[in-house]
């Protein structure tokens, strides 16, 4: 296989050996391609498995001092007003911090919170399986939530916001431009494309040739989609100044997809979704106008109104970034004019 076919793989693509769980630099372990039934292969495998089972068996424990109790009663989870997580999670009401389904599972699973079943004034410490059973209604949503939390992000359920009006750069109104073009005497002699007289036009530049063959698309009326897409989460990069009461605009927004049951959205659904997204920097996107060079390239590739799709396949999560493109704004027409005969003799 030639070099140019190789596709980079990431650490997440391969199952990593658990021996590296505690090492500072996670490098790729040496795995085999084929079974060779050697004693070494078998014992290495057993070692790896033992490492993994040992790590899995470490009890979910913490000290009484660090412990935060959360009580399950009447279908709701409320925790004590204690712990760092309160800066970004839960809703405080009547001296309790009420947690959503994904928040409680996450906090119990990572060992921060002790889940307690309340019955007739008596309390029983619950276990992880019970917490899942009692409140998990959407595990796909939970898995994306905890994946992002483990990376350090602040994650909250989506709150619809009014989208800031996008400040469009000031263009000469189209009609005015058309009139200007008409005044350009040199364009009087360009005949309609796709006709026999087109080749008699006086094209001075490649630009004029390309422009003349452009198609006029009919403007499309957009029907609202039957099943609009739901934005599930607002996500912020870690921020020590974040407050639950008045959070800033999120850094990005997440739509969750279970790939076993959902197909890619239709154009209708996407257009409708792009109208609803709102995040830091969105309204400034179209301002960085064609300045040429690296900035324009980046703008062209980034698009506008971006949203992240979290794809979940049986517990495995991959993210896809979608945005609206506008390749027609790119400046790719060659500008070099053809040089003709000069009055003077050529040097």
């Amino acid at each position, binding site marked *: 296989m030639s070099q140019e076919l190789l596709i980079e793989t990431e650490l997440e693509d391969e199952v990593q050996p658990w021996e590296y769980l505690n090492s500072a630099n996670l490098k790729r372990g040496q795995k085999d391609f084929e079974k060779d039934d050697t004693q070494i292969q078998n014992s290495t495998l057993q070692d790896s498995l033992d490492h993994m089972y040992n790590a899995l068996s470490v009890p979910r424990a913490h000290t009484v001092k660090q412990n935060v109790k959360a009580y399950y009663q009447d279908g709701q989870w409320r925790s004590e007003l204690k712990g760092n997580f309160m800066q970004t999670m839960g809703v405080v009401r009547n001296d309790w911090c009420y947690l959503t389904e994904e928040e409680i599972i996450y906090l119990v699973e990572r060992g921060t919170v002790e889940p307690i079943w309340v019955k007739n004034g008596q309390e029983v410490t619950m276990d992880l399986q019970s917490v899942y059973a009692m409140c998990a209604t959407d595990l796909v949503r939970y898995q994306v939530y905890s994946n992002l939390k483990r990376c350090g992000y602040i994650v909250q359920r989506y709150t619809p916001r009014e989208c800031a009006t996008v400040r469009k750069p000031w263009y000469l109104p189209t009609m005015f431009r058309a009139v200007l073009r008409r005044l350009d005497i040199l364009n009087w002699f360009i005949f309609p494309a796709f006709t026999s007289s087109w*080749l008699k036009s006086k094209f001075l530049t490649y630009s004029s040739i390309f422009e003349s063959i452009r198609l006029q698309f009919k403007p499309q009326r957009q029907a609202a989609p039957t099943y609009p897409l739901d934005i599930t989460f607002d996500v912020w990069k870690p921020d020590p100044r974040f407050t639950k009461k008045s959070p800033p605009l999120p850094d990005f927004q997440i739509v969750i997809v279970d790939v076993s049951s959902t197909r890619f959205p239709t154009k209708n659904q996407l257009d409708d979704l792009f109208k609803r997204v709102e995040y830091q920097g969105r309204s400034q996107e179209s301002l960085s106008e064609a300045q040429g060079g690296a900035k324009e390239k980046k703008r062209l590739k980034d698009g506008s109104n971006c949203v992240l799709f979290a794809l979940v396949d049986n517990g495995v999560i*991959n993210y896809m970034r*979608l945005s609206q493109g506008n390749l027609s704004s790119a400046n790719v027409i060659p500008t070099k004019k053809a040089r003709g005969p000069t009055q003077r003799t050529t040097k």
Partner: protein
Amino acid sequence: MSKRTSLNAKYPHALPVHPIALPELILHNPISWIWFTICYIKSFPTVSRTVVQFKDGCFAVDSPEEMMTLWNEGFFGKGTMSRSEPTWYDRTQKRLGLGEFKNLTIEEITILRREERKKFKRERAQLEKKQKELKSMGIVDPFIEERLKLKELRDKDITIPLERETFIRPEDDVLVVKGHLINIEQLQLQPCEVMFLEFALQSVTVVTDGVALSSNQLLEVLWPTKSADDSFIVKYVVYHYYRSLGWCVRSAIKFGTDFLLYNRGPPFHHAEFALHVVPNYNDTQKNTATAQDFTMLSGLNRVIAGVRKNLVLVFVDIPTQEEIDKAGSFQDILSLYSISEVLLRRWVPNRNRD
């Protein structure tokens, strides 16, 4: 001369239709004005006309000059015996020792690369064999030195030989007539390229069995069904749209999708965008039935990202069959469609990314 200027000099024409060349206008000189006006009136765009043969379902150009014209003036088509630009003639001349030595073609560079890779694989296989032997004896891997040597081999740049060896095969007899190499390579064109050259640029005549096809006859060949979502018409709308914006549009089949967009052309820049065409019907049910699969798109995204390009989903709004049937000219039909773009990219939740 910079690379950019030399490329512009080598490929001065972006299309087979050229703008008129006018003399410089010296504003304060009235004679210059007169001369300019005369040239303006007398000049018309020059067109590099070519003939395309339609035979056995393929569109091909076999005249060597016309092949080069279509390649040089917009990078249309693909050499049937080359990777893209038709270079079979040059390569074979060198191989048979008939011509002068010029720069290496991409095919030749690939061959050299593959030879180096084979060498690397041989050494690696030997290393693995040694490892396996030791393993069965219960010893694990001391070969750090050998591994380093392998790494060197892999990272080494290919060495370009100063002299090209000739390599003649018995079957080469048929290729040489009276001491000259005959050209058996053709430039093959895709249906949308032919349509664009014939309909939009009017620079090509399509001939089948010695008879020239009219525009309508060509359309009949390319789009016999006349159905609104026929893959020819949907792809043609996309091809025409991006070509008219100035992009050089070529096939992306080797990446598992529809088109690649080049800024100016392959010799100038690597392609930046890969287009995946998605028909969008007015009918929700039909859209849901033909919806793309996330897993497949995820895989495609990965391939495209692996070659450092950007994936663009190009949605094409499909008109109803009635609208198509009612429309007059081909141009009217094309206006019934419209295009919108959705950019797709992988996102990794590393804190430093956007």
